[in-house]
């Protein structure tokens, strides 16, 4: 008789499981324990995540990695495949030296194999109840994901393993897909937010390929051929460059068996990655500007080079960005927005494999749209950094900052897809999706002294890149004057 309670199971089998598992889950779990001990290699790791969900990790001989997080609260699961290749890598690839193919190729992954010709992949998934099926490409990685009802696990495994090796690349389809990608590219051109970020990265990185946009340029997108797509596919889409994350109402042993059956015969091959050139230490402040027809106010962005996400300084920096911009009570909400200088404040801290940026952004209030307004914003920021460098203030803000970060992380742990995304981001950047929870520990243990140290180390005026976006068309003289005023000052400096 299988046990009806899981209490007392040895820790290596995930003892102390959440008490909300129902009997059927208990039966599945017991079945897994019994089978595992006889017929399949032991998992290389089992642990309980901070939210109580058990995680099981497997490795396959062809280099494929598998992480399964059991969540039996609803009869559904999310299946994600992460490849450790992004636009940074294609730029460094001597055979490509461009960006945009990694993203265009990601689109082509939906355009058919011999077994599932063009249109079939999406149709089969839709018929079987897929909730969210898509893919994303970013600087360090590419991921594919779908959420399905719990009885469709084998289907997800079959479809994903098939397109990992059997994609049928076709020049006509490639040309059509370029049209959709160009549409996406142009949508980005119309969006001041996208353009603002692109300008900042371009100015802040001089040699590192993070300075190039993932989507590429119009010329690059148009130039890609089927041969180039095939080269990219054969080089980077291999099991030894992939990790599968399954989160939801699944049995890890069943997932293992299905993965083994469907991916087991896919051969690994060595992949030579080029190291990105390290960005030289920034010694002088930089500035750049742009004009955009859709911008209604002057926008100001500040970027500071930071550290890779794996670096011990990352967690305190994360607390700093939380202190500055997370929530209505954030420092810059108070000092930029409530002082009447800006309409909004926004912040971001890149979680990249290589050093990224800490980004701060504001749109100026109409009565501050002048060079003086921009300077005021910068002066306030300098004062804030000085203040954050004092023990008294760091002590005052750290609890709010920490709890806002915990809130945001826990929110991402609440459904399968968000949890898979949260964890998946650390596959390329750190090599371990459970780093999400290591980071959580680092956030919890960071001290006010850590905050002070990173503020003083990374947020120096000479490490700043400032980008100013101006409305292109002006309805009245004020904005035009502000722009001319600012350009004049820029020219003098």
């Amino acid at each position, binding site marked *: 008789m299988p046990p009806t309670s899981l209490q007392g199971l040895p820790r290596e089998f995930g003892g102390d499981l959440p008490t909300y598992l129902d009997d059927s889950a208990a039966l599945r779990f017991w079945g897994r324990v019994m089978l595992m001990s006889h017929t399949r290699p032991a998992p290389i790791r089992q642990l309980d995540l901070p939210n109580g969900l058990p995680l099981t990790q497997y490795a396959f001989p062809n280099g494929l990695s598998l992480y399964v997080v059991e969540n039996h609260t609803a009869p*559904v699961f999310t299946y994600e495949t992460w490849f450790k290749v992004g636009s940074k890598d294609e730029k460094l690839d001597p055979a490509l030296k461009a960006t945009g193919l990694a993203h265009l190729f990601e689109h082509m992954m939906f355009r058919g194999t011999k077994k599932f010709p063009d*249109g079939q992949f999406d149709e089969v998934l*839709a*018929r079987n109840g897929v909730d969210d099926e898509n893919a994303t490409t970013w600087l360090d990685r590419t991921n594919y994901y779908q959420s399905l009802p719990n009885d469709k696990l084998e289907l997800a495994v079959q479809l994903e393993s098939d397109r990992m090796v059997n994609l049928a690349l076709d020049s006509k389809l490639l040309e059509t897909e370029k049209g*959709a990608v160009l*549409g996406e590219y142009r949508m980005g051109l119309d969006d001041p937010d996208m353009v603002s970020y692109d300008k900042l990265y371009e100015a802040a990185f001089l040699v590192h390929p993070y300075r190039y946009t993932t989507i590429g340029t119009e010329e690059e997108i148009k130039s890609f051929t089927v041969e180039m797509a095939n080269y990219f596919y054969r080089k980077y889409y291999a099991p030894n460059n992939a990790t599968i994350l399954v989160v939801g109402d699944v049995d890890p042993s069943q997932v293992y068996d299905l993965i083994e059956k469907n991916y087991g015969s896919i051969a690994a091959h060595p992949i030579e990655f080029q190291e990105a050139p390290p960005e030289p230490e920034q010694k002088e402040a930089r500035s750049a500007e742009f004009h955009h027809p859709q911008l209604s106010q002057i926008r100001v962005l500040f970027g500071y080079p930071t550290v890779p996400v794996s670096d011990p300084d990352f967690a305190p920096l994360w607390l700093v960005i939380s202190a500055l911009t997370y929530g209505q009570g954030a420092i810059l909400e108070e000092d930029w927005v409530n002082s009447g200088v800006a*309409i909004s404040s926004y912040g971001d801290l890149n979680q990249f494999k290589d050093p990224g940026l800490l980004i701060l952004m504001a749109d100026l209030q109409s009565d501050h749209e002048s060079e003086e307004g921009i300077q005021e914003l910068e002066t306030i920021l300098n004062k804030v950094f000085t203040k954050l460098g004092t023990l008294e203030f760091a002590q005052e803000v750290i609890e709010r900052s920490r709890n806002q970060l915990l*809130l945001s992380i826990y929110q991402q742990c609440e*459904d*399968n897809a968000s949890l898979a995304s949260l964890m998946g981001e650390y596959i390329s950047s750190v090599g371990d999706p459970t780093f999400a929870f290591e980071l959580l520990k680092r956030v919890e243990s960071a001290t006010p002294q850590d905050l002070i140290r990173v503020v003083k180390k990374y947020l120096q005026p000479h490490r700043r890149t400032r980008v100013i976006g101006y409305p292109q068309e002006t309805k009245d003289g004020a904005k035009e004057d502000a722009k001319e005023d600012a350009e004049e000052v820029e020219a003098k400096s």
Partner: protein
Amino acid sequence: MKLVIEPSLQKFLTHFSVLIHAGSLSDPENKPGLAYFATRALLRGTKKKNFHQLSQEIEVLGGSLALAIDQSETLLRGSVLTQNLDPFLDLIQEVLMEPGFEPVEMDLLKKILEGELEQSLQDPRTLVSRALLQKAYFTSPVSRPPEGTMEGLAQITPADLHAWFKKFVVSENIVFGVTSFVEEGDLKRRIESRLKDLRHGPSTISQFPSATFPAHRQAIIVDREEMSTVPLFLTVPGISDRDPDSLALEVGNFVFGDDFTARLMQVLRAQNGWTYGAYSGYGQLLGPKREAGLFSIYLFPSAEHVEKAAPKTLELFEEYVSKGLSEDEFRFAQEALSNRYPFRLDSAEKRLGLRIREIATGRPYQTTEQYRARLSSLDRNQVNDRIAKRTSTGNLIIAAAGEHRRLESVFSQLPGMKEVHTVEVTP
């Protein structure tokens, strides 16, 4: 006050959704934006705490409170680390019962809201939807954005805020939704003990007005230079959220434009590469309502493809309404929607949202079994009949942003198009 508790298995966070039956329809004619201003003002301080103190106290608990408004309702949404539930509930009590509306703070908020209004038109989709609602609802308050207008904001006084609060933030007008790991009875006691003294007053559920569509086809253009894409809506009258035909029309729309596999995406994107996206639905321009809203198609073709994409979209729409679904398409949609339904209920927050929606719009909450039973009882003829009878094509409005000469030439050549106007959208 209606209290809705949805138990959750998530231990760390408790989530709140506080619905107030007052949206922009309740705004006085000369003060559009009052409801939005007043509810934003609730978060700008209480009688005991200024804005800084209030936001600090909320956030130090690992909490957040944010606001969303539409024409009919205002929704205050919040989350907090469950370990800090009690002090957070104290703060919600203070926000809902003792707002500050301090004049200096209100002046600052007004300035922020004015900036946000201007900022909102940077988004091309917002720009076009604003123009479209102006046209379709030109005689009613729906023609104005729920967030108000510059002119309206200027007219609002602290006395208006107090009056709004007294009238609308009353027990009978509030649905208090919560999802938590805390035991239901205990949670109920903790909430009720804090909100038992909420002021009483009549419920103010408002009637959502009908759109005023012309008897013929019209196009409106928001003139914008240097747009690389053309955000484009095609709109006709829609249905209410509780409409008995809603399931049949959901099946139809799934095939037409609610999925990547749907006709719109397949023809406009997958086959031709003219647009990155093309979707249709009943909730694109207005949220779910007790009364009929709008059905719309949204696409954003590259500017160079709008000449082909616009007429093809119209052709697809006419074909959908006149011919309906094939048997294969109908079966496909039935199977897909049936399999997909568990995702609507897969988290406590989603279930809570549906329960609150049931109260707000009258759309019944359905378990997977109930939904599947209704879905399997449909047949193709019923669905096609409902599509044809409930979807008009003669009096549609097309709205887009881009270079007006180019768009005027495209739209004036569309079959049945009687009028093409260029309109202005101002904050």
